[in-house]
């Protein structure tokens, strides 16, 4: 997999700092699962956090704090066996789906497009999208930030082509009509912190029902 569209340093730093809503964190964790460059960037931004903690202030803990902590130390856990997730979905997505792609509870949103909203806190939402090969998504703009990570197939819009592992970062300045390429159906993980702005009436009417 050759990844051409990566996460920005801002997003990597926000994820390392724990400042991202859960929905965006899932997209970042999934991209990092597929991308060594961003894994290296994450380690670096976490090291900045380590430096901030280590060189920051210290507030004395209670006198009995160490004793209280020592008293509750139990048997250490054995390290989890580290294996790549089997199946089509990367491990972080499988954690939210409760299994691989065959466990996804799809709902039709029209024009052959299916989606499954994954449960997250914090306001922002994240969904899996299944777009039939050759099909276009409704033309839309954004009120906030939208991250779209391709898991299978590819799509194109006015900016570029996005294949497996690529992330498109869309902000308020981007209006686009993503089209799934011919070949395999396109499966994406998409997170947004605001509702999309559809330009035609039908998707706008459908919006309250589908939470898109």
């Amino acid at each position, binding site marked *: 997999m050759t990844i051409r569209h990566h996460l920005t340093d801002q*997003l990597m730093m926000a994820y390392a700092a724990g400042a991202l809503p859960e929905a965006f964190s899932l997209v970042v964790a999934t991209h990092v699962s597929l991308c060594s460059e961003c894994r290296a*960037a994450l380690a670096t931004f976490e090291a900045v956090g380590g430096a901030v903690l*280590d060189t920051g202030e210290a507030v004395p803990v209670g006198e009995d*704090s160490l004793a209280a*902590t020592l008293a509750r*130390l139990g048997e*250490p856990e054995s390290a989890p066996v580290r294996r790549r997730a089997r199946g089509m979905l990367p491990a972080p997505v499988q954690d939210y789906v409760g299994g691989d792609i065959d466990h996804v509870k799809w709902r039709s949103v029209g024009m052959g497009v299916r989606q499954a909203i994954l449960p*997250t806190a*914090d306001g922002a939402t994240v969904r899996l999208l299944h777009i039939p090969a050759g099909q276009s998504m409704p033309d839309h703009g954004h009120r906030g930030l939208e991250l779209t990570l391709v898991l299978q197939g590819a799509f194109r819009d006015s900016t570029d082509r996005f294949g497996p592992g690529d992330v498109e970062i869309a902000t308020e300045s981007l209006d686009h009509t993503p089209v799934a390429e011919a070949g395999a159906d396109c499966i994406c993980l998409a997170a947004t912190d605001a509702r999309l702005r559809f330009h035609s009436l039908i998707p706008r009417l459908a919006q309250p029902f589908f939470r898109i």
Partner: protein
Amino acid sequence: MLTNTALAEKTQGPIYRLARTVAANRLASPGGKVFVTVEHAETDWVSLMLRVRDAQDKAAFAVLFRHFAPRIKAFLMKSGASATLAEECAQDVMATLWQKAEQFDPARASVATWVFTIARNRRIDAIRRARRPEPEALDWGPDTEPDQAEVYEVAQENLRLGAALATLPDKQRALIERAYYGDLSHSEIALETGLPLGTIKSRIRLALERLRHQMS
């Protein structure tokens, strides 16, 4: 520099004396910026952490606790926790460090970085009440012994990173700190916070080389 193996072979006494000396030097230095000492300190935290990991050494844990618990508490208070909650969570974080010690890998992160990630996750859980999706763990293969050169390199990089942060103007440093305290939203985090980009970029390159080496 002593390798971890060399340190681990020593009796407990000298290690702890060294750790105490390091702490004392740090306190005594004006502004706390003694880079040579910090380098030694990083090495020592690794050895202590490995004693916790490999021998469930409670004395080593106590030394780590005295250094990190007050910093975790301060970190969580800056993140908006009350002193009581921060104290409780600092104990949780240190207990997690013990519980999950098997997962500590000095070729991937310094002890301070590892402590930071546990404290950050505890904050997300306690204050935001959200889950934290984590990337898929890499399969490092059967060889679990860290490469000494890589452990040393990680310590050196963190030293450079700490030094670069220490030389930033106060205003920029404060912005970076606020970002890591969770005090800035993701849209407020911009790289104009003044992160030392040269240092960051070279560290990312090194981390990538190491990843490729470890995975090959």
